[in-house]
C-alpha cells in the first residue's frame, strides 16, 4: 500500500519525501497498536488448538479402565520406534497393557499412533512443556499417560498463568479455562 502511493507520486513525491513519510506512518501505526508478545511463563500461557500434537495421553472408560487393548499397532506403526507395549490378561479376561512406555526423546509427534489405534485409546494432547534435565525422565509410563492433559477444548486462548519454581508439576500452571483468557490471534494486525 505504501509503495504504490509513492510510485504514483513519481519524482515529485520523492522530492517531498512521500516514501519516507509512508514509512513513518507505518511505524507510527505500529507504535500505537497492541503488542503481541506472550508474557510466558509467569503471566500468560498460550493453550494450543485441539489439533495440536503434544504429549500423548491414554483415554479411560467410565469404570476408570484404560481403553487400550495392547494390540501394539501403535508401536508397529511408530516411525521412530519409541513406543513399547507389553500386554497381559487382567482379572476380567481382557487384554490390557502391562507396560506402555513412550520415549518422548525419540518421539517426533507425527500422530500416526493416534491414527492407527483401533480402540480410541492413545491421543496426542495439549501438553508441550516436556523439557527436563534428565534423559530417563523422558520415558513416560502408563500412569503418566493416563494422567496427562487432554486435548484443549478452548485452544488458541492466552490464559493467565504463574510460574512455580521447584514445583512438582513439569508444566506451567494455568488458570481454569474461560474468564480471563483471550484469543491471541485476534490481537495480531493482519498484513496490510
Amino acid at each position, binding site marked *: 500500500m505504501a509503495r504504490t502511493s509513492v510510485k504514483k507520486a513519481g519524482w515529485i513525491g520523492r522530492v517531498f519525501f512521500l516514501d519516507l513519510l509512508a514509512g513513518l506512518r507505518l511505524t507510527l501505526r505500529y507504535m500505537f497498536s497492541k503488542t*503481541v508478545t506472550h508474557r510466558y511463563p509467569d503471566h500468560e500461557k498460550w493453550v494450543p488448538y485441539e489439533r495440536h500434537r503434544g504429549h500423548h495421553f491414554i483415554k479411560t472408560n467410565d469404570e476408570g479402565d484404560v481403553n487400550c487393548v495392547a494390540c501394539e499397532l501403535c508401536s508397529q506403526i511408530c516411525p521412530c520406534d519409541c513406543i513399547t507395549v507389553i500386554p497381559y490378561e487382567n482379572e476380567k479376561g481382557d487384554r490390557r497393557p502391562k507396560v506402555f512406555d513412550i520415549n518422548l526423546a525419540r518421539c517426533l509427534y507425527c500422530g500416526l499412533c493416534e491414527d492407527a489405534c483401533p480402540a480410541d485409546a492413545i491421543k496426542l494432547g495439549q501438553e508441550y512443556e516436556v523439557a527436563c534435565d534428565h534423559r530417563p525422565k523422558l520415558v513416560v509410563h502408563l500412569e503418566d499417560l493416563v494422567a496427562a492433559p487432554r486435548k484443549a477444548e478452548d485452544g488458541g486462548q492466552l490464559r493467565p498463568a504463574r510460574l512455580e519454581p521447584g514445583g512438582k508439576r513439569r508444566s506451567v500452571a494455568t488458570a481454569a479455562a474461560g474468564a480471563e483468557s483471550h484469543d491471541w490471534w485476534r490481537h495480531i494486525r493482519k498484513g496490510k
Partner: protein
Amino acid sequence: MEYVLALLPMLVKMAIVVGVLLLLPLPLTWMERKIAAHIQQRPGPMRVGWHGLLQPLADALKLLTKEDHIPAEADRRLFAMAPVVALVPPFLVFTAIPFGEPVQVFGTEVTLMLSDMNVGLLFILAVSGIGVFGTILAGWASNSKYAVLGSLRSIAQMISYEIPMGFSVIGVVMLANSMNLSRIVAAQEGLWNVVVQPVGFFVFFIAGLAEAQRIPFDLPEAEGDLGAGYHTEYSGIRFSLFMLAEYLVVVMLAALNVLLFFGGWQGSPFFLPDTVWFLLKIGFFVWVFMWFRFTFPRYRYDQLMTIGWKVLLPLSLLNILVSGILML
C-alpha cells in the same frame, strides 16, 4: 557575603542543570527501548519495576561494574581522555540554552539560563563543533582499525554537516536580528520560524540528525561493517560516558530545534508554565528522533556525503539568498 549571595543563584542553577543532564540518559534509554519495542509490537522491558522503569538503573549498575578494559596497544592517556572530551561540549552547550522568561524569586530576577550571551547561537555551534575531538581521540587512541575507520567516518560526517547546519540558522538570525537565543524566541511571538523558514528547518533538522549521528546517519556506528565505530574498544564506565554524550547531543538538538524554529516557550496553553511547555516540546523532538531511528535504514557513506554537500549545502545557501531578498 554580598558576593556569595550574588553567586548563589548561579550555583544553584548550575547544580540543577548538571544534575538533570547527568540523570537524563536514564529516562531516555528507557524511552528509546520502549519506542523500539512498540514499533516492533513488543512490550519492551517489563520486569524491573513498573513497566521496566527501573531497567536503566539496572543497566547503569551493570555498566559501572564491568571491567574497565584498555587495549594493550592503546595510547593510555588519550584513551582515558577521549570520553571526557566527548562529554564536555554537550554540557557546555547547555550553559547557553534558555529555558524560559526570567522569573521573580524572593524579589530578585532570576534568568532561566546559565549565561545570557549575545552570541549564544554562535557559541552553541562552536562548542558542539568541539565534540568531534572526542571522536577523533577515541578512534586514534584505541589503536584498532575498526575504531580508526569509524572515527574517520564520523569526523568527515560531522565536519561536512556542520556547514549546512551553520548556514541553515542564518535565516533565523536574520529574522531576529540577533544571535541571542532569548531574543530569537521573543522574535517568534505570534508566528513560529518553521512557517517562515521551512527550508531552514528542514536543513537544520537533517544536519542535526547527522550531527548527533542518529539513524539514518549513524554511519560511525554501522555494526555491520565497523564493529561499534569509534568506541569499539571502550567498555564499562568509559563507554557509558560516550552514551551519555550521545544522548545529551540528542537533547541539545531537540532544544535547538524548538528554540530556533518552534518558538521556544511561546504559545503555551494557558494552564502550562512556559518552561514545562518548552520541555514538552523538547520531549516531542526527542521522541521524533527515536521514531526516525526505528523506521529508517542507514544511508551508504557516499550517499551521506552526497546529501551533505550536494543537497543540504546548496539548499541552505539558497535559503539565505531567498530570505535575504524577501527581507529587502
